[in-house]
């Protein structure tokens, strides 16, 4: 009888990796993004598999519900169709892919070479209440810092994306 949890992991990993790989080889940036959403959902499925429900839903909420929307806005607000003169060459892309492949090999080799004792028997699971208590207890400082960070990031983003100067005499009036 096949090992169900490992089979599930394999399926999740395959979906995540394939969608990410295809995403980054597509031309159309919208398709890239939508495939990446699939990949993000795959990561969330992994979290579920690992028993971290809360994190899985937070991942979907933040990545699918928020980040993808922001990216879509960025895509719509910038024109993606550009003249070709500055586009990177094939060699540039090949070098990038090669470097990534090297990193992948090194990482995988390191992982395989390391003896790891996984405590796979434990029925891991952290209830939401436990997470809440941890957040409000030992990790409250980090929580506050994250709160400040998010606020600052929001303000920074607004300032950065705002037009340089208020457009004067807008809207332009035609002479009556």
């Amino acid at each position: 009888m096949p090992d169900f949890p490992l089979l599930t992991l394999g399926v999740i990993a395959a979906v995540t990796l394939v969608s990410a790989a295809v995403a980054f080889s597509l031309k159309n940036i919208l398709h890239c993004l939508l495939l990446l959403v699939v990949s993000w959902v795959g990561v969330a499925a992994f979290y579920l598999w690992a028993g971290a429900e809360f994190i899985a839903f937070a991942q979907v909420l933040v990545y699918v519900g928020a980040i993808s929307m922001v990216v879509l806005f960025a895509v719509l607000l910038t024109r993606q169709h550009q003249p070709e003169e500055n586009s990177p060459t094939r060699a540039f892309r090949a070098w990038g892919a090669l470097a990534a492949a090297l990193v992948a090999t090194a990482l995988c080799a390191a992982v395989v070479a390391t003896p790891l004792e996984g405590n796979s028997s434990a029925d891991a699971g952290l209830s939401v209440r436990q997470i809440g208590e941890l957040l409000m207890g030992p990790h409250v400082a980090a929580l506050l810092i994250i709160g400040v960070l998010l606020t600052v990031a929001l303000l920074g983003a607004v300032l950065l994306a705002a037009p340089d100067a208020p457009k004067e005499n807008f809207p332009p009036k035609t002479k009556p």
Partner: protein
Amino acid sequence: MNSANDIFSQPGFQPVHDDFHGDLLELSIGPHHPSTHGVFRMNATLDGEVVVKLKPVFGYLHRNHEKLAEQNSYLASIPYTDRLDYLSSLTNNWAYVHAVEKLAGLAVPERAEYLRVILGELARLINHCCLVGFLLNDLGTSFTPLLYSLRERERMLDLIEELTGSRMMCNFMRFGGLRTDVSADWLARLEHFLDHQFARYLREQDALLTGNEILLARLQHVGILSPKLAVQAGITGPMLRASGVDYDIRKVDQYGIYDRFDFRVPLGDHGDTYDRYMMRMLEMHESVKIIKQAIRDLPVGDFLDPKAKNRGLRPKAGSCYARIEGPKGEIGFHLVSDGSANPYRYRVRPPSLINLTVLEDMCLGRTLADTIVILGSVDIVLGEVDR
């Protein structure tokens, strides 16, 4: 760069570049858009959703009206005038017969004048009902106020159908009077309708919609038309009065017997869409008053001057321009006669077309949604714009 967001590489999607605004989107609104009130098109250039350029395009409904009239006898043109502003054919008839009567020097019997006032104001009620309903529909009310307005319009159309035989293309006015007489029963029913059903409609409309916050937010300070521009562009009718210019041809010319009635002309202070909406609402109240006075004072007599010659009318050579206050503004006819049975030159001054010319000035800097509402508040009928 290879990652082409290729929606913009489609021919129609090439954004217009403009140093001031950056990338703009050209959008053709109409002629089959649900809210252009007919086959009317606007070429809008949008920055996001804000209109930076708007070009009205008309002519899709051009029917050669003026040239046709020059090939016809004077009488034969009356049915064609029905098709100008097909929501209020009675005032079109009136304006045309008014012009011909002026050209040929015909007299109109007292009773006919009163009946013309009643029918003209009824046409105004029908028109304003429609306008208010369609304007609110443009605001996205999923038809509710429109259907309430149309219910009242249906009742008025029933009355008109009974009298003239046709609901919209009435063909009822004649040189020197009307085609038929009006029965006392009909008048009583009209009065009953005004006193009960229509009064209730106006009350409901005021209570339910006029103070609605969303309505206020959508209409107030939107599409402002300055009095100066309004006068310069030749705007007439409720749209001009919404900008605060006191100009009502019923008061200025006092054509017909309008000097005998007690009515007021509402004026707006802001010239925005809300004022234009309210002008129509308030004018409906005044029209009801006029109709009631006319019914009360209606004299007995001829409905058509027996001496008036409708068929084969040959006015003396000359020209004239006559106008009346239509529901949409000044509707005028310029007629030139060379003494023959056909007008030598026949020209309509349509209020819709001229009111439409300031559309871009009102829409610039507003969003697409506002543009639709502003167009709705101008009150156009394409039959009249294109002729």
